[in-house]
């Protein structure tokens, strides 16, 4: 019997396969594995989307149908989907597979953590009253698109530091990465994408909170951490535009920013608050 957990476990391996191929294409400077990697990544995305929809359908079978964005497992599944999708899109747009070389492992890790970690339950649970809102979908989807943008920026930032700060031979591994200025600009692009969606995510969260509890902002730890993340990236945009920062400094901020994202996503679970992904 085919079910969403099974589909998503298979997708985990497809992502892993694709990540390994991307990395070996890079290491051995071959075109073929990169192409296979891209096709398997696309197959993975389709499977991931299928698993997501299937889980949605299954939740109706349990008698309380809702979009699968209500707990940690479901959010990780969606996170992996957005990372894979965005990195493939950027790769196609800029005709460069390198972006996925660093992003696909992240998609793999997210889904592997969801599928394999014993502490993440994949049970379909009913929605508690506070989550029953049309804002749930918009809020979660936009937040995760933002996170995925930042995850990609993080991957590119690491790539930048590897390329520009490590000594590399001509024709060696490192020199096969895209040129520094391209990476620099891509960090900017992906951060802007992430910033726009995080902004929408925070706003829809605020509107939702206002419709559920009567306050649009209550300094709940998750809210506060999303604001901290937002500040970090706002600082980055200002430093870049007005103080002319670029290159390694910006790459470092993209890494710090992503740590704030990760803390907003996971770390906050260890602090008290209203958000429900805390209950693994």
């Amino acid at each position, binding site marked *: 019997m085919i079910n969403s957990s099974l589909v998503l476990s298979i997708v985990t391996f497809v992502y892993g396969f694709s990540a390994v191929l991307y990395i070996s294409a890079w290491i051995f400077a071959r075109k073929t594995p990169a192409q296979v990697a891209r096709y398997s990544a696309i197959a993975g995305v389709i499977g991931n989307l299928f698993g997501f929809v299937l889980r949605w359908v299954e939740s109706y079978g349990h008698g*309380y149908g809702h979009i699968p964005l209500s707990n940690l497992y479901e959010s990780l599944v969606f996170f992996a989907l957005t990372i894979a999708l965005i990195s493939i899109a950027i790769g196609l747009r*800029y005709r460069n597979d390198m972006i996925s070389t660093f992003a696909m492992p992240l998609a793999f890790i997210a889904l592997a953590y969801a599928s394999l970690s014993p502490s993440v339950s994949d049970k379909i*649970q*009913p929605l*508690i*009253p*506070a989550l*029953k*809102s049309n804002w749930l979908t918009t809020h979660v989807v936009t937040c995760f698109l933002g996170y995925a943008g930042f995850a990609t920026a993080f991957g590119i930032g690491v790539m930048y530091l590897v390329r520009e700060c490590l000594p590399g031979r001509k024709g060696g591994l490192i020199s096969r990465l895209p040129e520094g200025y*391209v990476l620099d*600009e*891509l960090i900017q*692009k992906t951060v*802007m*994408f992430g*910033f*726009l969606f995080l*902004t*929408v995510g925070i*706003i829809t969260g*605020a*509107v*939702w909170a*206002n*419709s*559920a*509890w*009567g*306050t*649009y*902002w209550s*300094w709940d*730890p998750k809210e*506060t*951490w999303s*604001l*901290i993340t937002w*500040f*970090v990236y*706002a*600082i980055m945009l*200002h*430093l870049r*535009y*007005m*103080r002319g920062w670029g290159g390694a400094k910006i790459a470092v901020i993209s890494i710090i920013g992503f740590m704030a994202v990760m803390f907003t996503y996971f770390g*906050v679970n260890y*602090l*008290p608050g209203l958000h429900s992904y805390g209950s693994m």
Partner: protein
Amino acid sequence: MNKKQVEKGLVDTLWGVFSSVRLSVIVLTLLAVTSIFGTVIPQNAAANLYLERYGEAAYRVLHFLDIFDMYHSWWFQFLILLLGINLVICSMDRLPSALKIVGRTQRLNPENYRRALKGETLKMEGSPAEVAEGLSLRLKAPMATFTLVEEGEGQLLFAEKGRWTRLGVYVVHGAVLLLLAGGLIGSLFGYEGYMNITEGQSDQTVILNNSNATVPLGFQIRCDDFAVSFYDTGAPKEYRSDLVVVDEGGEVLSKRIVVNDPLRYKGISFYQSNYGTVPPESASFVFTSKASGMSYPVDGNFGKPIPIPEGLGTFTPLHFINNYKFRGHAVGATVLGVLKKKGGEEVRLALPIKSPKFDRMRRGEVTVTVGEFENRYYTGLQVTKDPGVWFVYTGFIFLIVGCYITFFMSHQGFMVEVTPDTSGSAVTLYGSVNKNRLGMEMVIRRLTEKLERETRIPERQVVK
């Protein structure tokens, strides 16, 4: 220097400081870093909890710095104020020159473009004038309407679009100011509190959350009914209350509210936030006599002794406890009372509602069980008034629109240079942009490639 000059110097310096992006980076960093404290240290908890956790000395320091309610502390508010002033001055400083750029006439300076991004030069059939005319039609869609300038024998086409997008960042900053203004208005003229209304009753005062002061609503809220439902798993599914607004003697509005769907009236919102049961005032009790084996149901009020038939004494129900613990075990809703036996001896009884046989364990002359009682809920409403919320919502819309404009739209200029060439004309595309050079590079490259493809195939050549 006379006094005026000193003053002017000071004003200029202050203006310089407050209009600088350096200050905003510093303030944003401070806000980001200090905000972390409030997420690790629980906010607004009881003093003894802090004392226990941090000890006396640390408690004093943290208390002095308002760390226990840090987002409302003077220094945090001061940082937010600085951010606001910074934004206002910064915008006043730069907006005029931005407006000037947006308002000026199109620049037709080929040298500017020759220094900007450039595509590969293509060869095309036809004289420069013919080619330029064809291109001005064909490239209008991706570029904009062209202005033609003749330069010697060559032709230059200029196009420009998206100049207004330079104002996007002022939309973003204006939005942030609206958010700050909305927050301020809310904290000055709004309040946050709660009301607990028993089913069937009305209330008109709000108890404020942080001061326990009360505020009159100016009208009454009546709760007709409250209900809670559960999933099979035991998790709560829905809380709902039927509320009625009674104003100036009449019922003006009624609404069934659930979490996420509040009642709003006269700028005040009522949210379903919790519930509880109201202790009943009366109940019926069943007394079973050990001697005769007879059972007698009798109604009684809390606090009043009930005579037990067969002259077995009296029973006085005293309290109704929702969650009673009997020797460390939670036994649920329980009636506590005192049994006064024939001889005057008193025994305290605990009668859990769910286990009617509980009192048998005492092996007394008479066994008491709780029969029927009135089970009423009260609904817990969160009540808020926030006149600033509309500023905040307007700010939200501006913020999204402004970010979209600043990030994904740009002020673009194009030049198409057509010069005479041995086989006809040579065409070069140039582009300049106020940001996102990589994007512009791609645009120029794609358009050049497209033109090349189209001119290579004879039947799709430039229309003559």
